[in-house]
């Protein structure tokens, strides 16, 4: 996928564990783990909003676009 989630990097910067983020965001740590490893198709604005609030960051810090040779397919 062309969109890469950099949640692990931002979490490491903020020194925040998955369980801690899970509690603050209100999303199960299993699901946050899926998000961290890029195993989801989409993310809701409400979830993104809660993550940015908890990590004190911008959506651009978490999401990154990477150009792929086959056009992101």
């Amino acid at each position, binding site marked *: 996928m062309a969109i890469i989630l950099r949640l692990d990097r931002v979490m490491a910067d903020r020194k925040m564990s998955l369980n801690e983020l899970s509690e603050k965001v209100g*999303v199960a740590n299993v*699901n*946050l783990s*899926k*998000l961290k490893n890029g195993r*989801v*198709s*989409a*993310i*809701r604005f409400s*979830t993104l909003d809660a993550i940015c609030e908890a990590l004190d960051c911008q959506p651009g810090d978490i999401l990154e676009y990477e150009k792929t040779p086959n056009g992101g397919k």
Partner: protein
Amino acid sequence: MDINKLSATAGRLNRFFKAIQAAIIIAWIVVICVTAALTVQNAINPNAMLDYEFNNALELGPIKLTFADGYAPENSNFLVYAWISTALGSAYAAVLYIGLGYVRKILNPIACGRPFYLENALYLKKIAVLSLIWGVVKNLGVVIETTAAMRSFGLDALRDSGMISSVSVDYVFSFDFIVTFFVLMLMSYVFSYGAELQRLDDETL
């Protein structure tokens, strides 16, 4: 939509269809046993007349017969007709039983609160095909039953001999099953799309 209400209804329907399936099996066993008993009775005493009240008139599916006074068909002829009817009834029961089985498989995940599975779309397609088979078997069954009755009771000869005063055959073919087939196929595509939406929702955080 109240998903709990939907789940409860699906659960109740599932149990209801399970009971109908059990009733089909019991009825099928009873019919086979009765026909077999009549066959055995006929083998033991071929001259014994079956306990059947004709009252000078008989309805066999689409055939309406009016008998002349004193006429009754022979046992062996009656048994041939009975076995053909039993075989046709078994075919109807088999299609209905399998169809109900697929409906129950669709109801199972609905009872758990998740109606849109790709498997449900496939089961709907199978039910659609079964509805086609049902329609063909039902329409063919009318012709087979009528022909069997005509042959088993020797009605052609009877009519010519003047033993019966009238014979009328009214074939009624039903083509509703074609509409049912297309409606079910359409529902199957709706379920396929629903399953895709469900998958996307499951993968969205």
